[in-house]
């Protein structure tokens, strides 16, 4: 809640921040201007040594303007000729612009919803899932059913229920039932 008797704080460009108790008041604009005057009046001129260095730089730069990055007259002889860039990095003359460039030209980010969905490009590839499922099913059947079951399904059922056929043909049934 603001005190109506308290003056509103001012924070203009030329006013110092409001100061609390225990802090010295900030100098006003006139005092700051006097500080600027004092600092401005104490500007030392360039020394003779500095001017001599600057003129020496000017003479050197005039005589050798390309001293920074001298252009070699000939390529270095001790280095092999740089190989040509890989063909993949060299764009073909009539190559269409890349998709990212197209997207940028259309004003939409690449990878956005306007990108076409991927699809199978080869027709035979559509049969690949069906062939895979068929192969898995065949392997499952052949692995789980013995070859004998394929040739004689009834014998396979009997073996599973009653045991091996030799035991039934030659063993004495009474021996099997008693100790």
């Amino acid at each position: 809640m603001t005190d109506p008797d308290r003056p509103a704080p001012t924070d203009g460009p030329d006013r110092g921040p409001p100061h609390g108790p225990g802090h010295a008041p900030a100098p006003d604009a006139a005092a700051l201007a006097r500080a600027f005057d004092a600092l401005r009046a104490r500007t030392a001129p360039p020394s003779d040594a500095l001017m001599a260095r600057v003129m020496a730089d000017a003479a050197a730069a005039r005589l050798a303007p390309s001293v920074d990055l001298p252009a070699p007259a000939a390529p270095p002889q001790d280095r092999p000729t740089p190989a040509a860039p890989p063909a993949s990095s060299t764009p073909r003359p009539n190559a269409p612009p890349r998709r990212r460039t197209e997207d940028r030209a259309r004003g939409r980010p690449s990878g956005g919803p306007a990108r076409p969905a991927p699809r199978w490009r080869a027709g035979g590839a559509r049969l690949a899932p069906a062939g895979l499922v068929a192969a898995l099913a065949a392997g499952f059947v052949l692995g789980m059913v013995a070859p004998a079951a394929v040739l004689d399904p009834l014998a396979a059922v009997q073996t599973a229920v009653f045991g091996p056929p030799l035991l039934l043909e030659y063993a004495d049934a009474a021996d099997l039932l008693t100790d």
Partner: protein
Amino acid sequence: MAAPPHSCRDASDRVPPDAAAPTPQDPDAALLAAYAAGDLQAARMLMTRHLPRVLSFAGRLLGDPAEAEDIAQEALLRLWRIAPDWQPGRAQVSTWLYRVTANLCTDRLRRRQGARAAAPLEAVAEPADPAPGAEGRLIAADRAAALQAALRDLPPRQAQAVVLRHLEGLSNPEIAGIMDTGVEAVESLIARGRRALAAALGPRRDALGYDDDRP
């Protein structure tokens, strides 16, 4: 001849010769063209015109006369090197030099930051007095030293704007061209810098004799 310092080439290398607002007439452009054609006397005239400004600007931003001389020499050296590529009418030489100097000083301050902790006020090099001996100038010397120390503690952009406005006497549009920003941003930088300077000098108000100046 001392080797030119090449230690600060980061930000100032981005300054193109047409970095400031186009100006139809620049007397320095003709001198620069004459120097590029081989006239060393033109370079001397350019140095006489601009070296004091560049030196004082760098000195006020850095607070170190020796570093300021290095920066001034480097700024002029870049002017000599760019002379053959200078495009008359697209920039003022003075504006370009101020901008290169500001960038060089910014690089120097960044490098200095962290290398040494904030020095006390007594460690700041006192600005040279061209007319020593006057007893009444002791207060002025203290005020100048205090303001120099306060400028050193300002953020670099605020310090550049304040120095260019209140010590170099440039207009806000000129400062905007040098600092590559808008006039409103320059006004804001100057206002914030002045507030920070006033707050920094406030505790020393009595010692600096500001109360004695009041009528």
